[in-house]
């Protein structure tokens, strides 16, 4: 009854269900694999600028929820070899993140921003040592979001929608501290090409979505017209043996675009805490 009376709740449950299926998909793969799944929650600051909505930058508190998984891949290896991170060169990552922001300008105007990002990365270890690894690879990401200006009466919002292909670097270093084996890891990613949605300079969303004027609203992106990077520095502290870790992270992300004379910037810094579970399904 509850679902039939409130379709919004029903939709949100479906979205959550799809999201969990996406995250748990690596766990249902082959047996004998090592995998890790993580969740992290952070707070920080985000800088927003969008000259389509306002000539003023907005700055404010923001939150970050990120979740994902990492698993080794057996590409080109005989079946007799197991798929642990120490044995294979290739591994994949899935990541999902949500970043809501409440920004205010020096003039007191409010800009609310939200973004959802879903990405898949494939990486190859290029340096492997018992103590440290360095891997590089590529990722594909889908992200969408938008800004809402409370003070703008006639064009209160703008929308982000983009598909990115990019490069990523991942490295980790193991060390012993207080008789505990800890891992410090860094991952940096940068979009190199893709597609992005953008209205024309002063085109209204009424024109795009109601009158269906779709010309020139999809842009090919490159590092000149759009920069999107993400970097995360983490310290993983093992808890309950080797099955799980507590994580503290610094997360930095930037999205800068310049399409159709519309300049947008989203620059965020978050400190987060999280939890990692390591799985080895027999």
């Amino acid at each position: 009854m509850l679902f039939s009376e409130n379709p919004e709740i029903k939709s949100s449950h479906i979205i959550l269900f799809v999201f969990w299926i996406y995250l748990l998909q690596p766990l249902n793969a082959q047996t004998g694999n090592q995998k890790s799944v993580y969740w992290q929650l952070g707070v920080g600051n985000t800088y927003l600028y969008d000259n389509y909505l306002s000539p003023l930058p907005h700055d404010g508190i923001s939150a970050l929820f990120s979740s994902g998984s990492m698993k080794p891949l057996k590409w080109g290896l005989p079946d007799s070899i197991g798929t642990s991170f120490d044995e294979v060169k290739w591994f994949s990552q899935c990541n999902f993140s949500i970043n809501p922001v409440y920004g205010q300008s020096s003039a007191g105007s409010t800009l609310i921003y939200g973004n959802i990002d879903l990405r898949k990365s494939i990486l190859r270890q290029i340096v492997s040592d018992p103590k440290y690894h360095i891997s590089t690879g590529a990722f594909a990401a889908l992200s969408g979001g938008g800004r809402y200006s409370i003070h703008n009466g006639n064009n209160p919002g703008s929308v982000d929608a983009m598909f990115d292909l990019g490069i990523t670097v991942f490295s980790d270093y193991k060390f012993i501290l207080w008789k505990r084996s800890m891992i410090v890891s860094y991952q940096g990613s940068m979009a190199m090409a893709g597609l992005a949605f953008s209205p024309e300079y002063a085109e209204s969303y009424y024109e795009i979505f109601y009158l269906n004027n779709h010309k020139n609203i999809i842009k090919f992106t490159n590092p000149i017209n759009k920069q999107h990077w993400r970097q995360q520095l983490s310290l993983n502290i093992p808890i309950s043996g080797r099955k799980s870790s507590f994580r503290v992270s610094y997360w930095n992300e930037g999205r800068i675009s310049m399409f159709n004379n519309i300049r947008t910037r989203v620059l965020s810094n978050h400190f987060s805490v999280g939890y990692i579970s390591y799985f080895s399904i027999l």
Partner: protein
Amino acid sequence: MKRTALLLILIFSLCACREEVNESTDSKNTFETLWSILDEKYCFFDAKGVDWDQVHDKYALRVDTCKNSDSLLKVLGEMICTLQDGHVNLYTAHDLIRYWKWFEDYEPNFDESLQRNLLGTDYQISSGLKYKIIGGNVGYITYSSFTSAISDAGLDYIFNYFENCRGIIIDVRDNSGGNLSNVNKLACRFTEKKFICGYIRHKTGPGHNDFSEPYPIYLEPYQGKKYTKKVVILTNRMCYSATNTFVTVMRQLPNVIIMGDRTGGGGGFPISSMLPNGWSVRFSSCPTYDENYKLTEEGIEPDSTVYLTDHDIQRGVDVIIETAYSLLQKN
């Protein structure tokens, strides 16, 4: 490793990429920001023959003498009124700066008490529409604002209710606009075929003539209950913005007559922005055109010009409604 280090340096260097914006709240910067926003995004400079650079030079001198926010507001208000555009407003916590001469300089041609007398107390209301069958089997609908929602179910009922009427009068006098989707929702009930009812362009860059190609705007017939008998639309100078668009669209239909005074105009699609001192500005950024690619900013002439005089009001007769009624009776 060197490449990785270079990449990291590049990534970290991007972290400092904040936009350079002068956020000073002083009079000079507030003026320059307002002038620049309009310079880059306002759409009717050439159509109205406004030399915006000259306006800058004239008002910059006056801004230098402003000693408080009230005097600044006065100067900026005067500056934006040079555009003679009802969609250009400056919003502060204590005042709304506006250009309203598009109706203030003209006779109202509308009297609310006469409309109340006509409607009586037994009229029906469907969302923003008030309606009844007045004597002689003529339907009457008044719609006071396109911001008021109208529903398909409500329109179905109304046009079934008016099905046996000789015709209907739609009174949009004193309706100063609202939501364009309501324009489409109402207008599509009066046509049997899809047609180009106008054009729209938008700014593609900060130059005064950086416009997109004109995009046609179509009106598609409603797939349901329609009304194709005679319709008279009553207008006055207060018909602005979305109402001006409604009249632009409706006058192209063969069964529709526009009656009353010229509409007020407001053919620019407005957008909003913000000034460093917290004031908001609204202005026209997308020009709209009629089916002949003529700007609708200056209003639409009625098919039949009828004025409501003070003498008529004293007599208690709304001659615009009476004329529409007589026309439909002859039908």
